[in-house]
């Protein structure tokens, strides 16, 4: 990686030196601050202190961590003492390597050592620019890296938010999922909070690009962009129409928003239930029992030609009145009589009758538990048998009694 970047960066180097401008390569940026002679691509040899942003803005009371590198190109490694010069009074500056203060570094041939200049800016630092110079000093060479720190307001965080598909169409029961890209266009990592303004009773939730966990904020590194998904659930009874949802992201004073739109079209929704809500009933063997079913439309568009059917145990009869309902408007309920006749040979017990309402593309099922009871007729016959037996006894008493 180091070798590769040296090649690509070599040609740009002069231009960069001249402009002292930011080079926005996402991975590694190298800036030769001081070189014995201008390096010619692979042949260049020497020692450099490099940083991406030699001039930065800091705020009083903050700690600025300025990452830099000590680059050795083709030289024999040696110990290079590190020092910091030009630290204003009250300020504190340290060179850190691997998170610890270091006093020297020794990069290998064609290698670099990552270092950080940690500057504690006092709270009362005066506005203006300060230049702090980092120096690496070997036996026979010395290189400097001046870093200019400007006290003042930081460059404001900047966020952009963009929806891939800002408008979706569907029914009240469809899933409305919008993918949005959030970009952190500032120089620092940000934790971005998300929110959405939706019409009343609309529910919104955020998830990570391809994740399923709901989130309310997401960290985005400086310059990076992340996809988030917002899912909007409209209420079931929502009327047809366009509903805007304003998605907002915010971090450290920066905000961005994007309007997405739900284009909800109307739909009928069929529901079949028992009138009193009890999905069970009683019936007598061989006798017709009537139950009242309710066909309702919970949807937003009328339902046409609702057909009713039922599946009952073998040899049972089932009849609907009416068999077909021409139309059920939204939020309308219509009653249907269903007559169930258990067959003569049914024995007492619990049976399932399944009723079904069918409209175009919509259907609803209701399982009815029917408790079949036997007629008490046989009970009366039984009593009759006992009565006959008693009559026999009474006859015997009349004929032979009282002796």
């Amino acid at each position: 990686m180091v070798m590769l970047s040296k090649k690509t960066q070599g040609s740009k180097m002069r231009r960069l030196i001249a402009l002292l401008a930011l080079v926005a390569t996402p991975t590694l940026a190298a800036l030769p601050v001081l070189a014995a002679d201008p390096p010619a691509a692979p042949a260049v040899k020497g020692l450099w202190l490099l940083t991406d942003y030699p001039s930065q803005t800091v705020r009083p009371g903050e700690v600025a961590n300025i990452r830099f590198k000590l680059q050795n190109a083709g030289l024999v490694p040696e110990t290079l003492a590190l020092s910091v010069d030009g630290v204003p009074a009250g300020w504190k500056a340290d060179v850190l390597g691997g998170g610890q203060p270091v006093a020297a570094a020794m990069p290998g041939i064609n290698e670099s050592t990552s270092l950080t200049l940690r500057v504690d800016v006092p709270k009362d630092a005066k506005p203006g620019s300060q230049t702090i110079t980092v120096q690496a000093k070997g036996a026979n060479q010395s290189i400097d890296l001046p870093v200019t720190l400007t006290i003042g307001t930081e460059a404001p965080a900047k966020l952009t938010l963009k929806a891939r598909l800002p408008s979706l169409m569907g029914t009240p029961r469809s899933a409305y999922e919008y993918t949005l890209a959030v970009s952190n266009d500032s120089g620092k990592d940000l934790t971005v909070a998300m929110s959405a303004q939706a019409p009343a009773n609309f529910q919104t939730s955020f998830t990570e690009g391809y994740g399923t966990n709901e989130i309310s904020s997401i960290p985005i590194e400086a310059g990076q962009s992340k996809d988030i998904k917002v899912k909007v659930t409209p209420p079931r009874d929502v009327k047809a129409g366009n509903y805007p949802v304003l998605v907002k992201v915010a971090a450290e004073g920066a905000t961005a928003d994007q309007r997405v739109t739900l284009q909800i079209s109307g739909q009928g929704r069929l529901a079949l239930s028992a009138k009193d809500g009890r999905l069970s009933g009683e019936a007598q063997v061989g006798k017709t029992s009537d139950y009242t079913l309710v066909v309702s439309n919970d949807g937003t568009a009328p339902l046409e030609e609702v057909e009713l059917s039922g599946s009952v145990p073998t040899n049972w009869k089932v009849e609907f009145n009416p068999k077909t309902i021409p139309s059920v408007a939204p939020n309308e309920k219509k009653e249907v009589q269903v007559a169930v006749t258990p067959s003569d040979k049914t024995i007492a017990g619990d049976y399932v009758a399944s009723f079904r309402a069918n409209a175009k593309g919509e259907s609803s099922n209701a399982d009815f538990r029917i408790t079949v009871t036997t007629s008490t007729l046989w009970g009366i016959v039984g009593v009759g048998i006992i009565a006959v037996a008693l009559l026999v006894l009474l006859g015997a008493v009349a004929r032979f009694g009282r002796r």
Partner: protein
Amino acid sequence: MPRNQGSREGSPFTGLGPVFLKELSDHLSSTRMMVLTLFVIVFGALPVGFTLQEIRTVTASDQFLFLRIFTVEPERMPLSFVVALNFMIPLMAIGLGFDSVNSEFNRRTLSRVLSQPLYRDALLLGKFLGGLATLAVALMALFLIVFGAGLLLLGLPPRGPEVARGIAFLLVAIAYGGVWLAVAMLFSVIFRSTATSALCALGLWLFFFILWPMIASAITTGFTPAQFRSVDEVLTLEQFSSALARLSPGTLFGEAVLGLLNPETKAFGYFANLVMAQTRGMIPGTPLPLDQSLLLIWPQITGLIAGMIVLFAIAYIVFQREEVRA
């Protein structure tokens, strides 16, 4: 021959009370009754004990747990409480009734008692009711022992429907005992020798418990076609076989008890249950309410009661036609 029976005066029930009370007290204080009760308790206690042990280890919730005490066949003993009762009750009833009338003849007490102001009607009915009450007392005691043991060992009270079913079971058991008591009394009226009467009653008992199932199955086999053409044909054959088996009071009692103590029972016969569950859309395993269970077993109950009455009527007619003189 009898010119003026219809004009006889006085209630045929005169003296019924004293006869009933005497029979009851005789039975309850007799050694025979103690032996019989002991017998039944031993036969009943073993399966109940084993069953209780098994039920206690079952953790699955069962809304009719209490009734299982009566019906579960313990693993260690191929005999449930109700099955034990099924053949112990007849033995008890026969023991109570086989000498009720002929012993009066043999002790030469009959004509002396009948010379008191009462009709023979009251004597026979009093004896029958006394025996029935004795059975009821013994069965009730047994029933309470089992219920008590269940309470003690299961540590939970029976629910209302379970108590109701238990009481209905007790009543059916008494009616079943009544049938056999009437059989025993019929023989005691027919035969002067108590030994003959006892032998005949016990013979009938053995016949119904050992021989009749074989005969019934042989008859059914005779009617079985080489090939069944429909499910209904199989059902019809099973119904025929059941009808034959139901000529035995033990079958009636067994089915009645099954319907009462096993609320899930909806049909009798293995095949009938299978067909109902699989092709007729019945939800299996759901309990029936008590009134439906009663309707299901109503033919069995009425069969037992009517059988008891008819047998008593036969015994009554035979007794009334007999000469008092010893």
